[in-house]
C-alpha cells in the first residue's frame, strides 16, 4: 500500500482522467475526516457556545453562538469556583511533584544499585500497580477517620490527607515508566562522575535528573491529570464545600436535575478544560509514548 502511494499521486497529477481513481483512494478521506472532526469537536464547540449564551441554560442554544455575553463567566465570581480551582491546583501540583520526586528516586535506586530483593521489589511493584487504589476506597475512608482522630490534618476533609492518598500510588504507577528511561542512560556516565568524586546524591540531583527531564514532565503531567480528574476519592475525603476540587464542586452544580446550573457549568468547563487541553496537545508526543508504555486513561 505504501509503495503505491507516491506513484498513484504522480499519476493523478499527470492524467486528469485518473481523478476518479484519486477520489476513490484518497479524496474521500477528506470528507470522512470532516465527519470525524465534527463528531470529536461538536460537544466542545457547543459548550463554548453555551458558556457565552446569556440565557444561562443549555436550552437557549438552538443555534450556536446566537448571543455573546460574558454573564456566565462573571457569575462564576459569585460561586466558589475560583476556590475550587485553587484547591485543584494545590492538590494536583503537590501530588504531581511528590509523584515525580518519589518515582524518580525509586527508579534511580532500582536502575543504579544492585541490592538484595531488588528483583522481588520490582515484581511486587508491578503487581501492586495493577490494583487501582479506588477499589479500596472504603478502607481509605475508614483509615482517614482513624488518622483524623490522632492528627486532624490527616483526617477526613483535609486537603493534605487527599494528597497523601494520591501519593500512595506514586511509587507503583511511575517507577516503571521511569525505570526504563533511567536504564537508557549509560552507567559509564555514573562511573565517570564517581571517579570525579561525586556522591550518589550528587549524581542523582546533578546528573540524572537533568537528563531525564522529559520523562519527569510526562509523569508529572499524568499525575496532575489523574488528580484533576479523580472524583471518588476527592468526594469522600473532602466534605466541606470550600475544600472541594473542581470535579466534586462542578458535579454538585449539575447533579440535581431541577436546580442544575448549566450556564455557569459551561463557563467553568471552558476555563477548567482549556489549560489541560493545551498541555495535552502540546505534550502529545510524550504522552503517546507514555501511554503505550502502559499507563491508561479512558
Amino acid at each position, binding site marked *: *500500500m*505504501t*509503495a503505491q*502511494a*507516491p506513484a498513484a499521486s504522480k499519476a493523478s497529477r499527470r492524467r486528469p482522467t485518473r481523478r476518479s481513481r484519486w477520489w476513490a483512494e*484518497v479524496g474521500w478521506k477528506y470528507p470522512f475526516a470532516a465527519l*470525524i472532526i465534527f463528531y*470529536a*469537536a461538536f*460537544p*466542545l464547540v457547543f459548550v463554548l457556545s453555551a458558556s457565552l449564551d446569556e440565557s444561562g441554560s*443549555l436550552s437557549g442554544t438552538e443555534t450556536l453562538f446566537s448571543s455573546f455575553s460574558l454573564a456566565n463567566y462573571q457569575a462564576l465570581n459569585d460561586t466558589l469556583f475560583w476556590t475550587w480551582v485553587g484547591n485543584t491546583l494545590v492538590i494536583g501540583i503537590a501530588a504531581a511533584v511528590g509523584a515525580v520526586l518519589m*518515582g524518580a*528516586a525509586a527508579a534511580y*535506586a*532500582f536502575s543504579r544499585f544492585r541490592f538484595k530483593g531488588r*528483583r522481588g*521489589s520490582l515484581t511486587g511493584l508491578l*503487581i501492586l500497580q*495493577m*490494583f487501582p*487504589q*479506588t*477499589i*479500596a*476506597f*472504603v*478502607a*481509605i475512608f*475508614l*483509615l482517614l477517620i*482513624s488518622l483524623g482522630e*490522632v*492528627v486532624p490534618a490527616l483526617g477526613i476533609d483535609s486537603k493534605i490527607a487527599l494528597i*497523601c492518598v494520591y*501519593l*500512595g*500510588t*506514586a*511509587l507503583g504507577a511511575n517507577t*516503571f515508566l521511569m525505570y526504563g528511561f533511567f536504564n537508557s542512560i549509560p552507567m559509564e556516565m555514573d562511573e565517570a562522575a564517581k571517579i570525579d568524586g561525586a*556522591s*550518589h546524591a*550528587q549524581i542523582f540531583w546533578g546528573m540524572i535528573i537533568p537528563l531525564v527531564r522529559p520523562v519527569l514532565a510526562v509523569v508529572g503531567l499524568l499525575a496532575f491529570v489523574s488528580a484533576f*480528574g*479523580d*472524583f*471518588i476519592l476527592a468526594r*469522600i475525603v473532602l466534605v466541606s464545600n470550600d475544600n472541594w476540587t473542581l470535579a466534586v464542586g462542578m*458535579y454538585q452544580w449539575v447533579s440535581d436535575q431541577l436546580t442544575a446550573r448549566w450556564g455557569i*457549568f459551561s463557563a467553568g*468547563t471552558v476555563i477548567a478544560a482549556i489549560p*489541560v*487541553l493545551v498541555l*495535552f496537545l502540546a505534550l502529545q508526543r510524550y504522552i*503517546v509514548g507514555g501511554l*503505550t508504555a502502559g499507563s*491508561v*486513561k*479512558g
Partner: protein
Amino acid sequence: MSIDTAEKAPAPQRDSLARGLTGLGWGFIVKLLLMMIVNALGVAGIMAAWNAEAWVILGASAIFLVAADWVYFSRRALPLKYIYPGLIFLLVFQVFAMGYTAYVATTNYGAGHQGTMEQAVDAALIQSEREVEGSASYPLAVVRDGDTLGFAISEDGVVEVGTAEEPLTAVDGSVDESGRPTEVAGWEIVDRGALLSDQELAQQVTDLRVPVSDNADDGSLRTREGSTAKVFRSSMEWDADARTLTDVDSGVVYSANEYGTFVGDDGSTLPAGWYVNVGFENFTRAVTDADYREPLIRVTLWTFAFAFLTVATSFLLGLLFALVFNDERVRGRKVLRTLFILPYAFPAFLTALLWRGMLNPEFGIINKWFFFGADINWLGDPWLAKFSILFVNLWLSFPYWFLVCTGALQSLSSETMEAAQIDGAGRWRQFRSITFPLLLVSTAPLAIASFAFNFNNFTIIYMLTNGGPRFDDTSVPLGATDILITAIYQISGVAGGRADYGLAAALSIVVFVVVGIVSAIAFRQTKKLEEF
C-alpha cells in the same frame, strides 16, 4: 514539644557529621534539617496517638520514624534512602488499604455496628438519660465561643463550664446573688432574650448535653428553658462482668450477643452496636440475600459487558480511523490528528457531565439537533442509558485507540506487506491475515489494561447516570447502569444513606480478584518481567 525534638534530632548526627563534611557539606545540612522536621513531626504524631489512645497508629509511626532515622543515618541502607519516602505512602495508602479492606470484609462494620463495644455502651447510656428525681437544679448561663455552645453553672461560688465534647471544668468568672454566672473567662454569655427570639438557637440549647464528668455513668446537665440546668442520669446500668445493660425503670436486661448488638430479654434491641468478626457472611450475603442477589447479578453482568463493549467499540473505531489516515497521500495529517484527539485531551469528568446535559430529554441538544426535537429519554430508560454510556465512553476513548493503532501500524515492517503484495494478497486479505494479527500482538496488553480500567470506571458511570435508572423491583439503591465500583459506593454509604462497610468491602475484594485475574493475563502477555 519542639524543644524536646530539637534535642532529640541532632543526637544521631554526632558521629556521622564527620563523614558528611568530607563529601557534601550543604547537602548534609539539608538532609539534617529535613530529618529534624521529620523527627519533630514523627514525635508529635506519636504523642498525639498516645493522647488519642490509638495504639496501632502509635506503633506504626514509631516504627516508621525509627526506620527513617536508621535509613538516613546509616551507610548500609543506600537504595532505601531513595525508595523509603514513596514506600511509606505505598505501604499506608495502598498495601494497608488493601489489607484493611480484606479485614473489614469479614466484619459487620456499618450502620448500627460502628466502633467498639465500649463506645456502644456509652451511646446506650447517653441515649437512656432521664432527669434524676429530686436532683438539684442549677441556675444556668448559656455561653458560646464562636459556633460552640456551652453551659456555665456555679457550684459553691466556683464557675464551671462544659460543652457537648468537654465535661464540666472550673474556670474564672463571677456569679450574681442567685448563683447564675455573669462573667465567664473565655466565653461570651448568650443573652436570654436571644434565646427566646431565636428558634434555631433555642433548639440547639435544649438539645445540648454537657457531660458532668468523663464517666458516662455520672450523667449530664440539660436544660428545658435555658435558665436552669438539671442533672440527667442514664436509666441503664452497665455490668462489665456480665456484659449486660439493665434498664432500671423497666427492668429489661440487655445482653451482648455475638453479632455485636445488645438484645433485651423482651426481644428488643438497642440501636447502638459494635462491629464483630462475621467470617464470610458478607460474601454469602451478597449471593444469597434476597434483596441483594438479583441486583448484584445484574450489576456484575453489566460490569463485564460494559468493560468489554467499551474497549471493543473504541478499539474498532480507533483502528478504523487509524487505517484510513495512516496514508501518506493524505495531507495535513498532523492537524487532523490533533483535531481527532480533542475528546481525549478533554477532562473525562467534564465530558461525562457535559453529555449528561446534552442528553437531557427536555432541553438536551442531542434530541433537538439530531432527532428533530423528539422526546427520547436517553438516560431514563435502562437500555438507552446503557447505550448512552457506551456511546459517551466511545467518544471519550476512540482517540486513545486511534493514537495507539496509528503507532502500531507505523511500526509494522514494510517488507512483510510487500511480500504479501507480491504473493498476490488483496487488501482485505492483507489486513485480515497480516496487519490485524500483528496489530493485536502489540495492542492486546493495552486492551487488557483498558478493560481493567473500565471495569472500575467510576467517573463515567457516576457522572453520567448516577447508576440510574434505579431498579424498580428491589429496595437496594442500585440501578441499571451501576457497575460494581459504583454499586460498592452506594452500598458503603460513605456519601450518605445506610452504611454497610462490611458488604462493600467484601464486594471490593471480589473486584480485586477479577482485576487480579485480568492483570495476570496481561502480565503474561506483556512479559515485562523479561526486561529486568
